[in-house]
């Protein structure tokens, strides 16, 4: 009987193609709105969150505002790093200066680094070597160049072993870094040069540490607590004297924002699906009235209430599901085109969204089909037979 009802519903949907299509249009647009918007948000946030986690989810950035006459030195950081919740700590102070090699010169940010710095920031070596603890201890005039800086200064030539000039002093290039392909570095040029912390602080006239980064050994929260305790102790229990930025709290804030964004857009899409459902109900009501005679005939030859109800309900469900399938196909097309235009980001339809669209469309078809189907089912056979439309 179910199969027969499906066949009957299909025949009716098929026999009036234009009307069926117009009925589906609301659902098609609703599904498209839902799937495309959610997929776009997902794609974009996927990129942004991977950027943020590239910055380091277990990373704390600390800046000191007021050292209360007891400033931090490198050995203080080493002491801090010996805490079991903390893996590494490294100063992150930098200055801007001109870097020269031969006739080329660039404006570069020069960071005073320790060996730990490169690990914390997740920087990878392309050639040569990184700054070692001995370089820091001996205040050696050596430099590591970012990929961009090496390109700008040496334009493709071998950089390692060459000499560059920073603030009037000569540095030997000991290493170059791999290209940073994150979105951040694509937006901001990164002519970065890293020299031993001891050399940088002397050049900048900044003997104390005013900002540093900490990599947690496990739980970032515990590490944050340890750093805060240490600094409070040092700075007369004044929690305004320093600031700790927890990168994982940024990414969780980001998650909240994107979650709300998808909810909002999903809500808008849900409303347009709802409107599509009302469209189905309208057309189904018209169709039930038009087909009063048909209902009368079916009842006369033995169709019960339930049979008629089922037939019209399945018809509504079928319209909603066909609309959903059309909507999904069009969404896939739109996402393909958007991905082509966007280039670097590929937007894909996640199975979750597809399931959501199918479930939602079916529910809409059933809910908004129920009333017209019931109107059909409760018609009196004699009155229905007498109807001339």
């Amino acid at each position, binding site marked *: 009987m179910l199969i027969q009802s499906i066949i009957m519903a299909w025949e*009716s949907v098929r026999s009036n193609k234009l009307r069926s299509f117009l009925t589906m249009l609301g659902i098609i647009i609703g599904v498209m709105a839902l799937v495309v918007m959610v997929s776009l948000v997902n794609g974009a946030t996927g990129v942004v969150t991977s950027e943020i986690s590239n910055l380091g989810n277990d990373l704390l950035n600390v800046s000191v505002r007021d050292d209360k006459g007891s400033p931090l030195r490198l050995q203080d950081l080493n002491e801090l790093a010996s805490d079991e919740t903390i893996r590494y700590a490294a100063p992150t102070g930098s200055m801007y200066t001109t870097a020269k090699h031969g006739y080329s010169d660039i404006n570069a940010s020069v960071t005073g680094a320790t060996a730990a710095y490169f690990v914390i920031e997740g920087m990878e070596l392309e050639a040569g070597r990184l700054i070692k603890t001995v370089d820091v201890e001996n205040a050696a005039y050596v430099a590591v160049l970012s990929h961009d800086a090496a390109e700008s200064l040496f334009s493709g030539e071998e950089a390692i072993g060459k000499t560059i000039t920073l603030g009037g002093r000569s540095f030997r290039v000991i290493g170059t870094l791999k290209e940073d392909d994150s979105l951040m570095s694509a937006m901001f040029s990164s002519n970065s040069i890293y020299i031993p912390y001891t050399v940088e602080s002397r050049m900048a006239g900044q003997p104390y540490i005013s900002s540093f980064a900490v990599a947690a050994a496990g739980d970032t929260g515990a590490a944050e607590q340890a750093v805060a305790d240490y600094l409070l102790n040092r700075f007369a229990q004044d929690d305004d004297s320093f600031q700790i930025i927890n990168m994982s709290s940024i990414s969780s804030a980001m998650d909240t924002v994107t979650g709300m964004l998808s909810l909002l857009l999903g809500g808008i899409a849900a409303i347009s699906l709802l409107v599509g459902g009302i469209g189905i109900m309208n057309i189904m009501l018209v169709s039930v009235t038009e087909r009063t005679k048909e209902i009368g005939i*079916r*009842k*006369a030859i*033995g*169709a019960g*209430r339930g049979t008629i109800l089922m037939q019209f309900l399945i018809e509504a469900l079928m319209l909603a599901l066909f609309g959903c399938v059309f909507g999904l196909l069009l969404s896939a097309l739109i996402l393909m085109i958007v991905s082509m235009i966007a280039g670097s980001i590929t937007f894909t339809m996640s199975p979750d969204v597809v399931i959501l669209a199918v479930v939602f469309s079916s529910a809409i078809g059933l809910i908004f089909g129920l009333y017209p189907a019931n109107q059909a089912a409760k018609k009196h056979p004699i009155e229905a037979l007498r109807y001339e439309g």
Partner: protein
Amino acid sequence: MAEKKPIIIMNDVSKIYHVGGEEVRALDHASLTVYEGEFVAIIGPSGSGKSTLMNIMGCLDTADSGSYILDGQEIDDYSEQELAKVRNRKIGFVFQNFNLLSRLTAEGNVELPLIYQRLGHGERKRRVQAALERVGLTARAEHKPTELSGGQQQRVAVARALATNPSILLADEPTGNLDSKTGDDIMALFHKLHESGATIVLITHNEELAKQAQRVIRIMDGHVTEVR
């Protein structure tokens, strides 16, 4: 000859319509019996209550009072669902205006009551084939109603009524929309079916047609006035 089995027993059946405060007694204590294998005509002028009678006989409607026994079953307080089932199994309708579904082919129309009986595919096809054969329309099985003449459409309707092997065939002015030649063909078909054992109730206001039946029941203002 053995005692004839009654298919329809109506006793003091009344149906009253209320139209704007007025009472219309469409059926007023009507009593009649139809036996198995009979060909009965019910005749009366327009508005006499013929269609009302047929609706009750055909279980499309229920009486306000009186009792109705169809093929041994007391119909009086059947639910809507039970009435639908009785219509499906025991009644075959033939209407004046054919009442075929225009979207379906002749075959599809004949198959419909069998689908509602939940018969399997093979059994349905077999019965549809047999019914179309009995009305002589095998060649037009794939045609839609709009591609058939009035007479052919009525044959399809008869085939649909026959397909379920009903206890009784109820025909309300089956020739009313047909020219006299085609009408005669349909009447001939009814005679043929009657000879092969079908029980037929023909409702008409046409004396000539009524004469062709075995027995005539006359109805006037909701009363059964003459049973012959």
